[in-house]
């Protein structure tokens, strides 16, 4: 109750401050258009932002706000890195790439930077990681943080897992496995959903009806739950056929995800097939393959690519969730979702051992960072493509 009063009081103070700020601004700047045309909402926004900034600075200085400090430091470092990266991009490279970097917002350059780093980690995991992903070292269960007082070991900065594998190495290999598998899954989903969607839009009629209704059915079953169900079934087949369960996971998630791709591909292609150049190609007597691959696909590529980024994130998160629930990527492959689940215990000790709590946050953060990065790039791409249309 008192908390509510505090909040209301703070709000009233902010409203007052906003009003005063605008008034003062007008008086001091001689009614400059900046203040003259400022709405009250905008003034409130500025005051609110200023208050938030002050609060952040205060919190930053406070002892115990370790995580907040880390978050701020991380944010600043990433922003700086992205800025430097963009700066470098503007001066190095071909004319085209330099032009690209000049038009790039900071968020997008951050995204590109992160994706590049992940790609390097994923491709060269074997060289970068200090130990192998399945290598069982002497000490099991070393606590992260490298602090011997709490059971850590500086040789394993992030500790080791229950049977003594280096968590840092597994985190690096996770880039290879988790990202690689998610990428493969998304590609498969696109091949499947995209081709079906194009076919449905181009041919139409009963095929369109059939596919659309089938997709309706699949979409009516909650994705995660359906995946769980199918994964359980697949566990038998994988044992019987001697095929890794991970392969089934790729197939299952691709199938479930392809329904979403199907809808988009069908809608996009639907907008394209009504174009006169498709009519012209049809009247020329072109075959279905030419229509789809030569006429429709190049034009559907931009929205599909944007969707690819988003879908990749979703697949990535779905795999992480499945791993979290214990049916995702199977050991001994290192995978971030499983790591979060295994390390999640440490979060409980955040109050007095923040370094230890950082381990699961790092694995989860690795997932979040990549999806944020991809989303930023997608956002920028969408913005660019819509900007070009205007």
């Amino acid at each position: 109750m008192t908390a509510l009063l505090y909040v209301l009081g703070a709000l009233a103070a902010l409203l007052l401050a906003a009003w005063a700020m605008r008034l003062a601004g007008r008086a001091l700047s001689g009614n400059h258009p900046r203040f003259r045309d400022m709405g009250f909402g905008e003034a409130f926004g500025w005051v609110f932002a200023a208050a938030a900034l002050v609060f952040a600075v205060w919190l930053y200085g406070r002892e115990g706000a370790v995580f907040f400090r880390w978050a701020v430091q991380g944010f600043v470092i990433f922003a700086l890195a992205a800025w430097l990266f963009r700066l470098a991009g503007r001066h190095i490279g071909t004319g085209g790439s330099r032009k690209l970097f000049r038009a790039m917002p900071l968020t997008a350059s951050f995204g590109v930077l992160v994706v590049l780093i992940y790609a390097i980690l994923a491709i060269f995991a074997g060289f970068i990681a200090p130990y192998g992903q399945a290598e069982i070292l002497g000490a099991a269960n070393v606590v992260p943080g490298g602090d011997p007082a709490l059971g850590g070991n500086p040789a394993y900065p992030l500790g080791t897992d229950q049977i003594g594998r280096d968590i840092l190495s597994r985190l690096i290999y996770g880039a290879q496995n988790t990202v690689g598998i998610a990428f493969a899954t998304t590609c498969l989903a696109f091949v499947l959903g995209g081709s079906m969607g194009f076919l449905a839009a181009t041919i139409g009629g009963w095929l369109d009806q059939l596919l659309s209704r089938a997709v309706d059915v699949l979409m009516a079953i909650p994705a995660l739950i359906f995946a769980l169900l199918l994964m359980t079934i697949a566990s038998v087949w994988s044992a019987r056929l001697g095929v890794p369960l991970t392969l089934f996971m790729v197939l299952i998630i691709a199938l479930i995800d392809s329904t979403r791709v199907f809808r988009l591909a069908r809608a996009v292609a639907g907008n394209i097939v009504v174009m006169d150049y498709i009519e012209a190609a049809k009247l020329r007597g072109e075959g279905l393959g030419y229509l789809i691959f030569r006429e429709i696909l190049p034009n559907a590529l931009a929205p599909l690519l944007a969707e690819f980024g988003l879908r990749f994130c979703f697949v990535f998160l779905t795999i992480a969730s499945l791993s979290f629930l214990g049916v995702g990527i199977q050991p001994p492959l290192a995978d971030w979702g499983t790591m979060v689940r295994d390390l999640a215990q440490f979060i409980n000790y955040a109050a007095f051992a923040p370094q230890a709590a950082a381990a699961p946050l790092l694995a989860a953060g690795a997932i979040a960072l990549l999806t944020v990065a991809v989303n930023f790039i997608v956002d920028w791409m969408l913005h660019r493509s819509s900007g070009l249309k205007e």
Partner: protein
Amino acid sequence: MGSVTRIVVQRLLLGILTLLVVSIVIFTAVNLLPGDFAQAVLGQGATEEAIRSIRRDLGLDQNIVLRYLDWLGGVVRGDLGVSFAQMNFQSNMGGGEMKTVAAQIAPRFGNTMFLAGVTAMIAVPLSITLGVLAALYRNSAFDKGANLFTLSSISSPEFFLAYVLILFLAVIYPVLPSLSNIYEGMGFGERLEKTLLPALTLTLVVTAHMMRMTRAAIIQLLSSPYIEMARLKGISPMRVIVRHALPNALAPIINVIALNLAYLITGVVVVEVVFVYPGIGQLFVDAVKIRDIPVVQAACLIFAGAYILLNLTADIMSILSNPRLRHPK
């Protein structure tokens, strides 16, 4: 109005058909699951004899098609059947009152709806307000900040968000309980308090999507001639957005809200696990674990039903929000 009714009836029939196919798919899938209820429930104690006896009692030894038709017949009469666990229990006892699947699911579903409701109460107004503001002040610091924040939250795995919220709001600054073990007979206030943390987690998950859709839908409209017309009539920017843009942006916004509500009802297993929330997702996972087909079937039917119903509602509301369809020429 006649055409609207016709569309609704058409969609409804299509929805029922979809439900039917969904139930067949699920029934097949569940029956393909390795092991069955008898094996699962007996675990290490599964002897041939015991398994056979349970299978016989539950009718698991019957033809799969017959079993499906039997189940379907029940559903059509509004009878979702009795869970295997209950039936097994009863066959041990020999008679007596049986708790039906519906009675078993109802309280769990109620909990799920409560969580979804609380989340929606927070997330929907929040995301629409944020979306409208972001559209109004587009490309400003506010817009970019909101974009950054929501993108980051949508990009994180749910359990990560959940753990982070627990870390901050329950461990470091203990203001909310991390355990959402709500139960029947709990006061509304307490129930709300316990539900708040999972609801906040889900809010973070769904807000981004809705906010971005609201923003995009409104911005797309902002370049349309009638918005320019309204501005050229000297209407204030807020009124332009609320009165001229929002009504036309309703269809996509309603759709994305429906989609997210469906997600809240059907897809929150992970959050339920982390917060120990007794929702229908946990029940479902438990039921799959012990191969309790009637419960799995009923839960799936509810999930699919919720999805279809919400989509249908969204369709109808889109129709109602569109004067072209509401008032045909």
